[in-house]
């Protein structure tokens, strides 16, 4: 079953800005899906329409088969939303925020209290339950919004840049948590500016730019489009710069080398040639995030196509 089925979705704001120009998007049940795009591409508008915060201009949105037009209540019940901005009452305590949210979905108060304990503990917020939300750190506020979104136990969780401004340790603990709940069967749709995050978590991906979907495929298929990667090799200080045959390379200084490696060639020959020259490779890393490279390329080629058509 499709967790989300969007067809021909358009949105034009009152000022005339056309944020969505007829997008089609499908997300399978149980998927971990990334929706990527530059600022102003239409990601938040898409999420806004799906979660009923933005009125669509035309098109159809179905959530687990429930149309927003004819079965809004059923559709809403399936969705948990973690928005980009903090949108809880800063003066309420954490317990009040999550218990009230469950109440809006019709969860009786005694069950809501049990779930509050479960999710606040899972997100390491239980000790803070009686504190007003304004006293939390940024990372805690982000986790509070995840706990709040889970209180009615939705089938699909939508996260709009959930780790923005969060330190790396908390970000990684949030990734672990999201992976766990996805494994339990919750469909997750994620927008993020950290492309590493999307690459690490998501199985499928859509790239949106200027209100249209420019790519919609699996992460694996997307990354396979990248036929060359650049590696940075850290070496001991060399009196004579090493060289490679059959590879594009650059000696950045006396202890760092950059090598372009075609995907079907592999790295073995690089190591072999360096070894023959008596050079030890101390460490190695990708020059740029692979997905980031692809992302920039996709967005630019989409724009070029449009410019060409015009």
């Amino acid at each position, binding site marked *: 079953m499709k967790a989300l089925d969007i067809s021909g979705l358009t949105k034009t704001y*009152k000022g005339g800005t056309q944020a969505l120009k007829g997008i089609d998007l499908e997300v399978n049940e149980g998927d971990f899906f990334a929706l990527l795009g530059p600022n102003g591409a239409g990601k938040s508008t898409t999420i806004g329409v799906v979660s009923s*915060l933005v*009125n669509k201009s035309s098109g159809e949105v179905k959530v687990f088969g429930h149309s927003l037009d004819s079965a809004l*209540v059923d559709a809403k019940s399936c969705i948990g939303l973690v928005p980009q901005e903090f*949108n*809880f*009452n800063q003066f309420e305590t954490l317990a009040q925020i999550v218990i*009230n949210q469950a*109440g809006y979905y*019709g969860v009786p108060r005694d069950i809501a209290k049990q779930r509050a304990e479960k999710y606040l503990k899972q997100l390491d917020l239980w000790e803070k339950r009686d504190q007003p939300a304004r006293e939390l750190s940024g990372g805690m506020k982000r986790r509070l919004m995840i706990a709040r979104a889970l209180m009615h136990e939705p089938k699909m969780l939508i996260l709009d840049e959930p780790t923005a401004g969060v330190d790396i340790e908390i970000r990684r603990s949030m990734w672990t948590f999201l992976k766990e709940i996805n494994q339990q069967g919750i469909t997750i749709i994620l927008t993020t500016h950290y492309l590493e995050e999307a690459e690490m978590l998501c199985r499928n991906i859509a790239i949106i730019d200027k209100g249209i979907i420019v790519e919609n495929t699996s992460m694996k298929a997307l990354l396979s489009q990248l036929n060359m990667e650049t590696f940075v090799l850290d070496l001991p200080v060399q009196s004579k710069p090493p060289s490679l045959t059959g590879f594009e390379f650059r000696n950045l200084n006396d202890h760092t080398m950059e090598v372009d490696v075609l995907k079907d060639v592999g790295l073995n020959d690089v190591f072999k040639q360096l070894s023959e020259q008596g050079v030890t490779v101390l460490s190695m890393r990708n020059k740029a995030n692979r997905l980031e490279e692809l992302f920039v390329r996709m967005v630019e080629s989409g724009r070029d196509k449009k410019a060409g058509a015009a």
Partner: protein
Amino acid sequence: MANRNFTALRTIWIKECTRFLRIWVQTLVPPAITMSLYFVIFGSLIGKRIGEMGGFSYMEFIVPGLIMMSVITNSYANVSSSFFSAKFQRNIEELLIAPVPNWIIVLGFVGGGVARAILIGIIVTCVSMFFVDIQIHNLAIIIITLLLTSSLFATAGLINAVFAKTFDDISLVPTFVLTPLTYLGGVFYSLTLLPEFWQWVSKANPIVYMVNGFRYGFLGVSDVNYMVSLGLLVGFNVVLFTIAYQLINRGVGIRS
């Protein structure tokens, strides 16, 4: 479905009550102090020189009007401030994404305003008992008028908050509309003291009917027929609730 809606309504109502109880120094204490001053100055000091009005001491005469004045002001202020804050902080989105029918949202916020108005009404009544012996002519009319008036002004406060874009916008109506209408609504005087023309003009002021309906419940006297008062209150409630529901339904000020 009915259970879910009831749970949602109860949640909004509890949230609203918790809000005004949390800031009780701002919400519950000021009306008690203001009304004490009214009772001391207008009732005890000036009232003694005024003598009787409508067959009652001046203090007895103004008590129902002063309670009603607090009810009107507080029911309006509670919802306008709470709903606008929810819009401003964007936590209204918590409700908009949930499967809560829009009429439940309106009812929940209005219910919060009514709860605060009733509590204020009880506090002001208790304060007035230090100054005068309260008499009750018809308790049912007191309760019905109290509920209908507070729900009417709570709904009006919600409509104000829907259109408000800044905090200034939610103080404009109370300052320039509610306060003048309340002071000219027969709280401090009987309409019979006015020249005939001004009596006629005063009857275009809806607050006259609420104050007099409420006064009838306490004293059994009124410048207008209490049934007309109740009828108008029901009518205004239906009209304003429908407007508020339609505004939320269309997402005015809350959905883009």
